[in-house]
């Protein structure tokens, strides 16, 4: 009896930290409708051969990325939908607290067409250095590159760029891997590229292992040759993983001055490809190789203000069935050649977690974390977990064939889960303040992005939900501390300054961030970096541009956005 009591007591602590009411200093209000954002994502319809598990296969594609298509320093938003005929949306910031969908006029709406495929993600970057951010759309189907003409319209330049490839991709990341000042492109493959989901020749399309699958789509690295052309350099640089990559992010993790690639792989271990001076990538062990989970998203943040790029990767937890747990990997590459995984409590167990992003929501100088959760919300009285557990332990050649999967019907699968807002308390760890913050939705969250949408010095949160409306969580009065914003403009580097590494010293700490070429799950944050400072003033600001040039700034005014152009 005493033993049972002990189990019950210890189990009761599994929920993690209780929320101290005084600490709930993050306030977010959902304002999508009020801002004119009425986007509703639609999942793809698939070949009838996989109709019995279509809700499972097709539960992807709700993406959001932040851009500024007209350089007015007001963030715009791009959402993808994933059904033939459904339109993607480009919301232009009206600078008055509202947005207007201009995707149709801009020519970036009608990308979901039979024979061409459906949108699964989007990233923005100025690949031709003309001063306007261009758009790459990851698709199940032919990938698309759309050039920003600078007049509010876009031209499809995919074929001319050499990027018209059929892939089943759920993400991409811009990076300048060879530091030549031109943005290169890494496109992730999820399902194999020979699969056409609307004309299936075989139902042997699924993973052959739940843990170490290598039969996914091949990731591709395209080198920007200039003059609007890209070249596939995947094999020569050694980054053609086939591990069912769902998300990628890039930063200089080992401080050697070259941008590396970090992959979140479904059905397998994460992968870190270290950049060897732009000539090749090397798969690092870094403590990742044996820790097989279901990586969904990867986001980068300096969690403890150590001046390092730490990594958060989302995974799956379901009571009784599966505890994979999210990974919070603290970067010790310089000292130990590895990351240390330290996630526990509310950080580890968020449910079936998808997109996530770091950002200082309360300007206290510590990066908080927002995690979107939930896979399939259908009939709340039925769960697919048991049915899936029947095949999950089996031999790979059984469940590699979709025909052997039990029908999902109307069942849910980790549905109706709530998003998490994890407030960083430094040495005291993270605490979940979602409910207190006002984040109470139970939609099937996918992509998360952060941006100061209303230029108030406070980060807002955008969540794209599968088969549901997008949410805009406007930061209310929680960002009381000081802040600085940095918009970087490359000259020798790519104009978007993607990959620029910035360290801001304040108080007795320093925080490091990187300009985002795509991160989280099929999402991209604002390229303007936002540093919360608490009550401190900014000290030195150290910028390492993608070109390798280093710059130090001092005396930047607090509570302002600074536009910094790379010295020639």
């Amino acid at each position: 009896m005493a033993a049972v009591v002990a189990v019950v007591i210890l189990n009761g602590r599994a929920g993690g930290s209780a929320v101290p009411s005084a600490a709930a200093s993050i306030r977010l209000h959902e304002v999508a409708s009020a801002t004119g954002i009425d986007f509703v994502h639609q999942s793809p319809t698939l070949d009838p051969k996989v109709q019995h598990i279509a809700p499972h296969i097709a539960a992807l594609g709700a993406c959001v990325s932040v851009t500024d298509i007209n350089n007015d320093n007001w963030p715009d938003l791009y959402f993808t939908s994933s059904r033939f005929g459904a339109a993607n949306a480009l919301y232009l910031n009206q600078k008055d607290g509202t947005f207007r969908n201009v995707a149709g006029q801009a020519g970036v709406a009608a990308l979901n067409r039979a024979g061409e495929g459906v949108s699964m993600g989007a990233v923005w970057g100025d690949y031709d250095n003309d001063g306007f951010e261009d758009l790459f759309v990851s698709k199940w189907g032919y990938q698309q590159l759309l050039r920003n003409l600078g007049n509010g319209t876009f031209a499809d330049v995919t074929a001319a760029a050499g990027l018209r490839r059929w892939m089943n991709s759920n993400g991409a990341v811009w990076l300048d891997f060879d530091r030549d000042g031109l943005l290169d492109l890494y496109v992730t493959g999820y399902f194999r590229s020979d699969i056409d989901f609307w004309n299936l020749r075989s139902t042997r399309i699924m993973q052959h292992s739940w843990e170490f699958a290598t039969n996914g789509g091949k990731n591709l690295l395209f080198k920007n040759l200039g003059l609007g052309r890209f070249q596939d350099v995947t094999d020569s640089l050694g980054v053609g993983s086939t591990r069912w990559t769902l998300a990628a992010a890039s930063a200089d993790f080992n401080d050697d001055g070259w941008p590396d690639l970090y992959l979140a792989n479904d059905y397998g271990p994460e992968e870190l490809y270290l950049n060897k001076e732009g000539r090749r990538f090397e798969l690092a062990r870094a403590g990742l190789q044996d820790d097989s989970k279901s990586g969904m998203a990867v986001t980068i943040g300096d969690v403890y203000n150590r001046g390092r790029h730490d990594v958060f990767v989302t995974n799956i937890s379901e009571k009784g069935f599966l505890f994979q747990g999210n990974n919070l990997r603290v970067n010790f590459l310089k000292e130990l050649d590895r990351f240390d995984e330290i996630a526990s409590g509310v950080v580890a167990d968020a449910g079936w977690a998808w997109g996530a992003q770091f950002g200082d929501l309360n300007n206290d100088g510590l990066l908080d974390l927002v995690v979107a959760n939930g896979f399939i919300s259908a009939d709340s009285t039925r769960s697919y977990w048991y049915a899936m557990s029947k095949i999950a332990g089996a031999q790979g050649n059984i469940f590699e064939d979709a025909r052997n999967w039990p029908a999902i019907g109307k069942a849910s699968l980790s549905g109706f889960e709530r998003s998490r807002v994890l407030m960083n308390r430094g040495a005291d760890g993270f605490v979940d303040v979602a409910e207190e913050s006002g984040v109470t939705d139970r939609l099937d969250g996918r992509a998360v992005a952060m941006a100061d949408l209303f230029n108030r010095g406070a980060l807002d949160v955008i969540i794209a939900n599968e088969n549901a409306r997008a949410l805009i969580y406007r930061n209310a009065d929680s960002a009381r501390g000081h802040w600085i914003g940095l918009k970087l403009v490359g000259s020798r580097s790519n104009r978007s300054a993607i990959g620029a590494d910035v360290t801001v010293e304040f108080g007795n700490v320093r925080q490091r961030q990187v300009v985002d070429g795509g991160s989280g799950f099929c999402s991209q944050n604002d390229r303007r970096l936002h540093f919360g400072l608490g009550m401190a003033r900014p000290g030195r600001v150290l910028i390492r541009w993608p070109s390798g040039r280093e710059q130090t700034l001092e005396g930047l005014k607090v509570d302002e956005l600074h536009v910094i152009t790379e010295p020639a």
Partner: protein
Amino acid sequence: MASAIDPRYLIVFLITLVLVLGEARYGILGGYDRLATTLGICLITEIALSWWIRGRVANLASAYITGISLALLTKPQANILWPFALGAFLAIASKYVLTYRGRHLWNPSNFAIALMVLVASDSVAILSHQWGNDLRINLIIWTFGLVIAWRAKVLHVTLAYVACFIVLALIRNAIVGGPLLAELAPITGPMYQLFVFFMVTDPRTTVSTRRGRIIVVAIVALVEALMRLAGDFQLPLLRPFYVSPPILALALVGPIAMWWDLWRTARRPDGQTART
């Protein structure tokens, strides 16, 4: 002579093989601290309780098997160790506390894992790792397992259970429909390897006659099938059971069978066990 080898040491060899293969190829432990905790507490608890209660230190092979089994089967929420520590203690303690006529009723690791899954589902699941779903590794383990089960004279238990599972899978498939392979699939996985080679065959917690053992595993398979049907029909009250039907079916049926067998044996005029 091989036939003189204590069956426990054959099982020790097999579970060590499973551990080494799985860890080397797939990192199935998820951290050596888990193994050290589970194995350490199993051994310490066994030494302490056997010395305290029986006045001598017991053979540690059984505790070793229990420790490895628990380390492989217990998959808790991230980075918590207490399920390994508590599970190890519960497993070994059950051998000394939950007894009837001097015999323990539950397979130790089965008792511990069943209790934790039922009572602590917020923290503990079973075997999230699937050892790569790799046919080659599984064939090696099945081959060694069957040979060792034969040498340990428990092959009839293993085969009876597998046969019952297959027949009942066919029946379940006839009831619920869907792909037949989905119903047969579980038995090809690693959790069932641990189950058929280390739990359901445990000589200390199986009944005394060959026929009795076959009947008992048939009942275990039947109860498991009922739990699986509960899962298929989504009976909410039984949800705690269909997260791991074989483990929980054995935890329910095994001790009842043991108790009945011991009670029946004790009532015989000669009072002797008819173990074959």
